[in-house]
């Protein structure tokens, strides 16, 4: 809304009026090139027979057929599904519980919140390192329990290909459930106090007030928390590398580590590009409708 006084044309004024566009354009160009251009390149490579080096002959969906014929990809997809559903469900449950408890006028709330949230400031590599140490069957939790008198206590999930995926859930929940708590707490704080008072006057029990009044109001917060956690889950790469290295074997591979392995270790660019494109599609399916509704609300 640049409103300048009406006057004759002058180059300086013309420039001044165009400045916002001139400033935004290079940044927009960066985004076009590094985001959309790169996505287009990756998507195109997924339609070519590229191996060690990219080639540009279009060959249709062959790489996708190879991808979906790779058992390791199914392991990655299955792991992503197990990991994200457990990670989201448990983080949400802990998050909402802690948020409700903290909302009861707790003394030292600030301190407690700080404790709940600090893991979010850590790198997933650090989180993976410490949990790897605590869960290692030799000297970690297993040893602790045995020393405490449970002679037969066994906890070898980290090296057990059937259970290793759950160690990722344990570490990821530890890191991110405080984040869910913070989002829910912000949501709870925005609920109008009058509604709560009215419910209390009506003799509604605290439990009932929460389940039938407060939580329904928080529906949008639930939605955005699920989306943020799902987004974290789909991108999870660091934690897998640090905690299990994708192993034992490739038992804890996820799409992100699968893509990395095929791109940088096995030099199968076509398959890597196809898997990256599948990841992008998944994110788009989740994020775009959400962004659309969010932006419409604020516009």
């Amino acid at each position, binding site marked *: 809304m640049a409103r300048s006084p009406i006057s004759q044309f002058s180059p300086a004024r013309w420039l001044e009026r165009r400045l916002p566009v001139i400033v935004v354009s290079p940044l927009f160009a960066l985004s076009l090139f590094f985001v959309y251009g790169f996505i287009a390149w990756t998507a195109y490579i997924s339609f070519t027979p590229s191996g060690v080096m*990219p080639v540009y002959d279009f060959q249709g969906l062959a790489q996708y057929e190879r991808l979906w014929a790779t058992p390791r990809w199914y392991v990655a997809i299955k792991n992503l599904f197990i990991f994200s559903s457990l990670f989201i469900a448990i983080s949400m449950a802990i998050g909402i519980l802690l948020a409700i408890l903290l909302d009861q006028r707790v003394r030292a709330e600030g301190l407690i919140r700080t404790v709940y949230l600090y*893991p979010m400031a850590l790198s997933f590599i650090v989180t993976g390192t410490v949990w790897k140490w605590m869960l290692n069957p030799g000297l970690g939790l297993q040893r602790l329990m045995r020393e405490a008198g449970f002679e037969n206590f066994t906890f070898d999930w980290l090296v057990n290909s059937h259970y290793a995926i759950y160690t990722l859930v344990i570490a990821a929940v530890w890191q991110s459930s405080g984040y869910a708590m913070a989002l829910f707490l912000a949501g709870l704080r925005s609920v109008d106090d009058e509604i709560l008072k009215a419910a209390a006057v009506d003799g509604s029990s605290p439990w009932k007030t929460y389940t039938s009044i407060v939580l329904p109001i928080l529906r949008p917060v639930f939605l955005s928390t699920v989306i943020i956690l799902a987004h974290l889950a789909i991108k999870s790469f660091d934690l897998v590398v640090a905690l299990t290295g994708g192993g034992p074997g490739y038992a804890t591979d996820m799409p992100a580590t699968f893509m990395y392995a095929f791109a940088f270790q096995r030099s199968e660019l076509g398959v890597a590009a196809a898997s*990256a494109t599948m990841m992008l599609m998944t994110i788009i399916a989740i994020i775009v409708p959400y962004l659309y509704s969010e932006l419409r609300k604020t516009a």
Partner: protein
Amino acid sequence: MRARRTSGIVRPKGLRSTLMRALLFAVLGLFCLYYLVPLVVMVSTSLKTLAEIREGTLLSLPRAISFEAWAKAWDSACVGVRCDGLRPFMWNSIAMAVPAVLLSTALGAINGYALTKWRFPGADWIFALILFGAFIPFQVILLPMARTLGLLNLAGTVPGLILVHTVYGLAFTTLFFRNFFVGVSNGIVQAAQVDGAGFFGIFFRIVLPMSIPAIVVTVIWQFTQIWNDFLFGVAFTVGDSNPVTVALNNIVNTSTGVKEYNVDMAAAIIAALPTMLVYVVAGAYFVRGLSAGAVKG
């Protein structure tokens, strides 16, 4: 003070509510333990000798405090073939994070300002298109980025990482500043225009001084993201130019020699210290960044 309490749902009345309060604090305290135990284990393990680690358990405290593991993690642990500890990689991370944070924050600020206070046709679309970049899985840009860095002669260098982090941080920083500026009255900008101030004059003299909170939130968010990044570091750097997260992972997941858990833990703490420090000093801003990361301001 009593009267104000009525707005809470659990109100103090009688024995039952006293018990409820006790239960409440018990649960909150248990969760505090849950979040703190790994930190305690990390610190106490890092202060033990290897012999003590083998004898004791996770929760046993060090009998004699030893800083050997810290010294080793800092300047003599082997990362790949190089045995200088984490120190050179900490410098890499600082050399990467500081310019990338400053650049992406500055560009985000001017972008957010132009997109909200000087709305031109298509501004909303441009914002939406830029914003999308904040959500893409970075796997989708790894391959072309590696090639582009190669073409620019930046492959495997710290400046290359600065470029990558600046470019992919822009979407977030623009989002933060846009959300902040939306709340700033247009009247201020219009009044300054009437006084003859231009685009940059208004930005530097009026808008920027009032956006200190937004700047702090953005800087903290970007610093945490960039410092903690692993994917770009591992994909785009080799050996000497690795950021500290990659070096830490190399120390921990090396398969040669005796496993030195105390050194691993000391290294993990060293790598985590800068972001932890920021969190402790400016936790409130960090939390604001987290909730702004949830798309809405």
